[in-house]
């Protein structure tokens, strides 16, 4: 852990505090924390349970100069936030982390083995509750085919220890199909569904939505938050009923508003209390955006999101 502690120490000199992770003693996994001093920085950890995308906090911290520890995928969110003007580059110092073997889907592990089951990851082997398990089965979906292990933005760069990847870490973005554990089969089934079947599938999924807005609040790009159009009363775009129809409206508007902006971090899906596979939709949309505009959100500080530059008069893909 010396790398992260030293990097944090250096970054602390130029910032008010650093967003990173510390160890939760109860469960033995990483939990997000703010580090204000060298003394606190000594408690920083960096391991395969640092699943949270801390970039979500940045738009709310405009008054401060903030240090942030960011994995490759998290760094994409920071880039996109800067591109959209939600975060000032000068006010954020990034401790980029080149991810080694991906993050563990802690939520999925605990749903299977019970909350708090001990996760012991030596890098070479992974065990849960004392039993050795297959790492591939317990990786976050987005980590299975990651092309974002190397952070595109960083003021410090450190490498996470762990087993090596087969190929060198890249920052091109990898697959958009970031479906977490247990939903890979679902993804294949979904792809084979006819349009009508997909509609029925989503109606069923959204019928469970309880409108807690955890998806929105956990999303680094949903920084409209408290002025979200889905909660305005005038105009009254979405009804307050928690039925499939209204929830579908809310969810699809959110997804559409993330077109060309979603960096595929999967936090919405991780936060959802009722397990709606939101990344199926967002991954598909990210594929479409890439196909149409050759654009991946959060991979280039100089790029503009296509839907923020679209000019109806110069419509080049067949419309009016």
């Amino acid at each position, binding site marked *: 852990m010396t790398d992260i502690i030293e990097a944090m120490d250096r970054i602390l000199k130029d910032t008010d505090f650093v967003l990173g992770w510390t160890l939760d003693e109860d469960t033995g996994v990483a939990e997000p924390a703010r580090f204000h001093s060298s003394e606190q920085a000594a408690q920083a950890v960096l391991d395969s349970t640092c699943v949270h995308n801390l970039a*979500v906090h940045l738009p709310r911290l405009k008054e401060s100069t903030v240090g942030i520890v960011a994995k490759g995928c998290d760094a994409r969110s920071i880039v996109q936030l800067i591109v959209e003007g939600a975060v000032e580059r000068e006010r954020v110092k990034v401790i980029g982390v080149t991810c080694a073997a991906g993050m563990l889907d802690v939520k999925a592990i605990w749903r299977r083995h019970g*909350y708090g089951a001990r996760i012991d990851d030596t890098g070479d082997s992974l065990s849960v509750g004392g039993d050795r398990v297959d790492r591939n089965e317990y990786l976050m979906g987005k980590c299975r085919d990651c092309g974002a292990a190397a952070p595109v933005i960083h003021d410090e760069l450190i490498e996470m220890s762990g087993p090596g990847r087969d190929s060198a870490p890249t920052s091109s973005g990898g697959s958009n199909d970031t479906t977490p554990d247990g939903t890979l089969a679902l993804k294949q089934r979904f792809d084979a569904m006819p349009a009508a079947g997909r509609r029925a599938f989503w109606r069923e999924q959204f019928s469970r939505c309880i409108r807690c807005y955890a998806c929105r609040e956990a999303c680094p790009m949903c920084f409209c938050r*408290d002025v979200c159009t889905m909660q305005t009363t005038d105009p009254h775009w979405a009804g307050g009923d928690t039925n499939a129809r209204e929830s579908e409206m809310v969810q699809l508007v959110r997804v559409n508003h993330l077109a060309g902006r979603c960096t595929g971090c999967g936090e919405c899906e991780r936060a959802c*209390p009722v397990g709606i*596979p939101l990344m199926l939709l967002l991954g598909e949309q990210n594929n479409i955006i890439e196909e149409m505009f050759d654009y991946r959100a959060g991979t280039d500080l100089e790029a503009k999101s296509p839907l923020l530059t679209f000019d109806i008069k110069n419509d080049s893909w067949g419309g009016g």
Partner: protein
Amino acid sequence: MRFLAEEKLEALLHLLAKSSSLWTPTAIEDAAGTVTFEPWKPGTAPVLDRFTTLSAKELLLPATEKLFSFTYSLSEGEESVEIEPEGQTGETILFGARACDAKAIKVLDALFMQPAGEAYGDDQYRRRRLDLTVITIACTTCDAACFCSSFENGPAEKSGSDVFLYPVEGGWIAEGITDRGGDLIGGDSFTDSGIDPPELVVTRSVDIAGLQEKLPEIFANIDFWQEATAKCLSCGYCTYTCPTCYCFNIFDEMRSDREGERLRGWDACIFNLYTRETSGHNPRPTIAKRYRNRIGHKFSYYPANQGETLCTGCGRCIRGCPAGLDIRDVLTGVKEL
């Protein structure tokens, strides 16, 4: 005590579902291991080895419910509004609650079951509550998020339950807690039993003594609350999965230009919009102030006003918090101030 054999369970569920709307913990398909209380369908086995992600509060406080519908009419210059109250609900049985879920119902009763006409008595709640039977499965195991042992009686808490089922080899020992529960286990699905109920689990415990007085004392210590809630995202995960959080919003939805419905739906004090006033002023503009209210309400104001702690230690808010915030750490932090 009576005994329910494992192989008699399905027949019992069939029987219960005949006369009532029967809800059981159900594994949801394509939902990453989510288990929630759902209307029972013949052929599905209740999930009894995992905790439900959502609590059972929706049986008493639906995520949205119609209070009444209204129709506006204008005839010969006369304006009128007709109001049609929401109809009756039927008998409901909740099978597979945990002691913390059942206790939560008792805790909510302290407010919503106040006599009609008193400040908080609530007709819709009362109607559903009087029609509700709760069959609880006693806990012989727990996980690291459970902390019901912090509260009087812990996992042996029987208030809110009509029947208590203790898991034993081959089935469950059944104890009738209320008359209604006693009648239920008097049925043919159960047999007499002399077996002793098993030891219940002991969960982690948080010292909550004195919080009622301490929380108002440290109300102005905003530095503490800011530090304690720094990672909170202000999402509704904790409040919406909590069995005792009951904040609600009342709003109208028009179904046509003259007809509409007045609805009540879940809301959360952790949301910015919950306290934002029409003027734009918000008395709780920061996450720290909102989370402080959540803790204050649960462990000080509600106990002071209603005589019950508004938390039963079910641990749902801990298991699922996307930011890894643990309410027990916050409570311990308050104690240490």
